[in-house]
């Protein structure tokens, strides 16, 4: 049935066992002269790259709708007006930069190990990012927005943190890309390179999440906005779950894995 394209197929040797990986070869499987495979339909699939792109383009566009104060969002007298606070355009640039960087990374940097995910996930992922983006953008670009308590000092410090972490995040993504050669699917332990931003690999398994947390903490400090704090906390919880999982699989895969490393926060978590 042409309806079940390969990405949608899950084959196992044992109905309760783990699904077979794409790269496994029939000759290497523990089967005799005949083999029984158990098939499962994973449902409609969509590529990870596509999901990431749609996930990121949404917030990018949505935030700008609020920044330019398009009609129907705020009171009519504020349509197409600009905020008098300096921090508001700075925040817009940062938010947009963050998502543009993500789009670039999805297109050119990431070498994704799983090729697809169930179609249902796109609704979950997109509504999460899109709704939060709208919620944050509404308040930051609101005519009654209150700038940070410590004024310019706070914004400058927050901006520095944000940029530092964005550079860090990019460095980590590049370092992870260089680990994965397109031909072989051998897994390797990431180590610090000449780039100082990667030195954090000595203490953390998933520094990409660490830098991401740092970026959003910077953004929270810059905008002093509770919805941003909320988004940062929820994101942190999710990334910690992912980091712990990745850390555990590193430990399982490599016996010589450095014991000093923590999943996401040095020495703490």
């Amino acid at each position: 049935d042409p309806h079940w394209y390969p990405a949608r197929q899950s084959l196992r040797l044992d109905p309760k066992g783990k699904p077979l990986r794409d790269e496994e070869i029939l000759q290497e499987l523990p089967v005799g002269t005949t083999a029984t495979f158990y098939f499962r339909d994973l449902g409609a699939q969509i590529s990870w790259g596509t999901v990431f792109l749609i996930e990121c383009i949404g917030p990018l566009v949505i935030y700008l709708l609020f920044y330019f104060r398009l009609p129907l969002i705020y009171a009519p007298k504020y349509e197409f007006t600009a905020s008098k606070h300096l921090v508001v355009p700075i925040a817009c640039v940062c938010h947009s930069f963050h998502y543009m960087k993500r789009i670039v990374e999805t297109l050119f940097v990431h070498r994704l190990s799983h090729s697809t995910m169930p179609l249902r996930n796109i609704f979950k992922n997109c509504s999460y990012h899109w709704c939060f983006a709208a919620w944050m953008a509404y308040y930051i670009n609101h005519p009654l927005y209150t700038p940070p308590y410590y004024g310019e000092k706070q914004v400058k410090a927050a901006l520095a943190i944000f940029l530092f972490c964005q550079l860090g995040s990019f460095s980590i993504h590049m370092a992870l890309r260089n680990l994965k050669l397109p031909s072989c699917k051998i897994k390797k332990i990431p180590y610090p390179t000449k780039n100082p931003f990667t030195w954090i690999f000595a203490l953390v398994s998933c520094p990409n999440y660490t830098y991401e947390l740092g970026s959003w903490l910077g953004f929270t400090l810059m905008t002093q906005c509770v919805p941003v704090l909320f988004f940062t906390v929820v994101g942190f919880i999710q990334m910690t779950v992912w980091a712990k999982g990745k850390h555990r699989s590193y430990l399982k895969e490599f016996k010589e894995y450095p014991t000093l490393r923590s999943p996401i926060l040095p020495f703490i978590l």
Partner: protein
Amino acid sequence: MASGEEDGTVEEKETNNKKRTKGTIATAWLTFYNIAMTAGWLVLAVAMVRYYLQKGTHKGLYRNIARTLKFFQTFALLEVGHCAIGIVRTSVIVTGVQVCSRIFMVWFVTNSIRQIQNEESVILFVVVWTITEITRYSFYTFNLLNHLPYFIKWARYNMFIVMYPLGVIGELLTIHASLPYVRRSGMYSLRLPNKYNVSFDYYYFLIIVMLSYIPLFPQLYFHMLRQRRRVLHGEIIVEKDE
């Protein structure tokens, strides 16, 4: 028997003993809890009937039973804990949602918005809750004591068919009645500008709560219907064999 084998069985016996003690403590606690809750809701029922017989009206009835209602309904939070630690085999989420919706009604609607306390819809859902809870808690009690009269089982798995929708109607009408007072007083709301750069409007929040009944109520209702079919269906099979 070789001494090695004896050591193994001794260890096994110890863990089994620990499990059995934990099981007995759990059963004892749950029996006490369910008896206490049955008694509590019975007290509420009696108080309501007495008030109505004495005064002939439902006005002021809520104020009269408010403290008892709040106490026993809040105590039900423990049930979420029971599911979480596993001594009751129900989903934490289902229990959590049900208890939270009750707590929300009692503390954040009828308790805080005094003007609606004499509405008929309040009496409707309080009566429904009382009947439902007395049935439910006595069902659990008798179950734990292994002496379940058939009529209690029948009541538990059939009355909800009518009680549940009636309760929902009572709750929704009450929230709806409270809306103008919430809007006027601006209670539980945070307006802009403020240094947190966030706002919250309790009025719109209540509207969202009302709308959330649309997806949530059918799910809980069908969950109960499925449980009912499972219990009664299982019973039919046993009778056939005999």
